[in-house]
């Protein structure tokens, strides 16, 4: 029999029914190899989506981004933020009444020897300046195993109808 291939397991999902400032996935099992967070946030205003791990609010996060805005000046850019108190899951992109997409891959989240990295894809097709398409790499400078992932906006709250899903990727067996 062929070896079992890796599969996604839904750890938890949340479809908001009320306005919510932070969506938290806690007590994440350490039994998977990687995590995948899919978020379709809604908000009243154009806000950045931000992440924190294990409730860490220290300045231990950094990102590098490549962004296209479709219009305006510049039309695209790349840059970095360092020593942030959170990890951006977009940059100069927005959430509004059209659901946009965040696909976040968090690699080797349960190891206790290396800092944690995430690959992020952000898609928001709303017109400039509220929209954009982006790819980001994020770093959390901690060797702790990730057991909690919190998703927030840079200000305001997520609106009802926002959807968040956390998957674990099982190792091949």
């Amino acid at each position, binding site marked *: 029999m062929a070896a079992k291939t890796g599969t996604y397991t839904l750890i938890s999902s949340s479809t908001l029914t009320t306005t919510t400032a932070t969506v938290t996935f806690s007590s994440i099992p350490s039994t998977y190899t990687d995590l995948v967070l899919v978020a379709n946030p809604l908000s009243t205003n154009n806000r950045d989506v931000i992440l924190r791990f294990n409730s860490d609010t220290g300045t231990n996060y950094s990102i590098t981004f490549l962004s296209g805005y479709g219009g305006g000046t510049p039309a695209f850019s790349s840059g970095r933020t360092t020593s942030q108190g959170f990890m951006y899951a977009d940059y100069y992109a927005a959430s509004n009444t059209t659901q946009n997409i965040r696909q976040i891959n968090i690699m080797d989240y349960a190891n206790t020897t290396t800092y944690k990295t995430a690959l992020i894809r952000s898609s928001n097709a709303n017109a400039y300046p509220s929209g954009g398409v982006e790819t980001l790499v994020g770093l959390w400078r901690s060797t702790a195993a990730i057991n909690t992932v919190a998703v927030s906006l840079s200000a305001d709250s997520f609106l009802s109808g926002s*959807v968040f899903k956390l998957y674990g990727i099982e190792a091949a067996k």
Partner: protein
Amino acid sequence: MALQLFKIADSTVESPVATVTFSSIPQGYTDLKLFISARGDAGAISRSVYVTFNGSSTSYADIYLQGDGSAASSGSNSGGGTKIYAGECTASTATSNTFGNQEMYIPNYTGSNNKSAATDAVAETNATTQYMSLVAGLWSNTAAITSITLVPSTGSFVAGSTFTLYGVL
């Protein structure tokens, strides 16, 4: 609950076709994923691939970030568009036997919000210019997606092109 990609349908082109359509898409999944390996027959290094939903030709928008091997660019089609751009596939002057690759993710395709799509696309070839693209797409329509249609900007998809639609649970 184990998450799987369930193959809803696939299509392998046996002779050139101008359009590929997935219809009667089941409504029981949470999201859709569409994988494309395609090449066009138009006389160019690449051809754009476009997507429409439910046979509609209104209310589409997209923003793209693209590299062509020497420069990057970003552009948009804001509102009122007739289709969503989904990157480039190779075409007839590209290196023989090379096909573009596209992956489109469509979350909450049965929901009552407007529909968003994220596409990653590459069209590699052994030449100076070819394209890789990231695209954010939007269909400002609250209807559940029941069909997806793909077309090249001109010409047809050649034999050997494949299109596979998965449902995500």
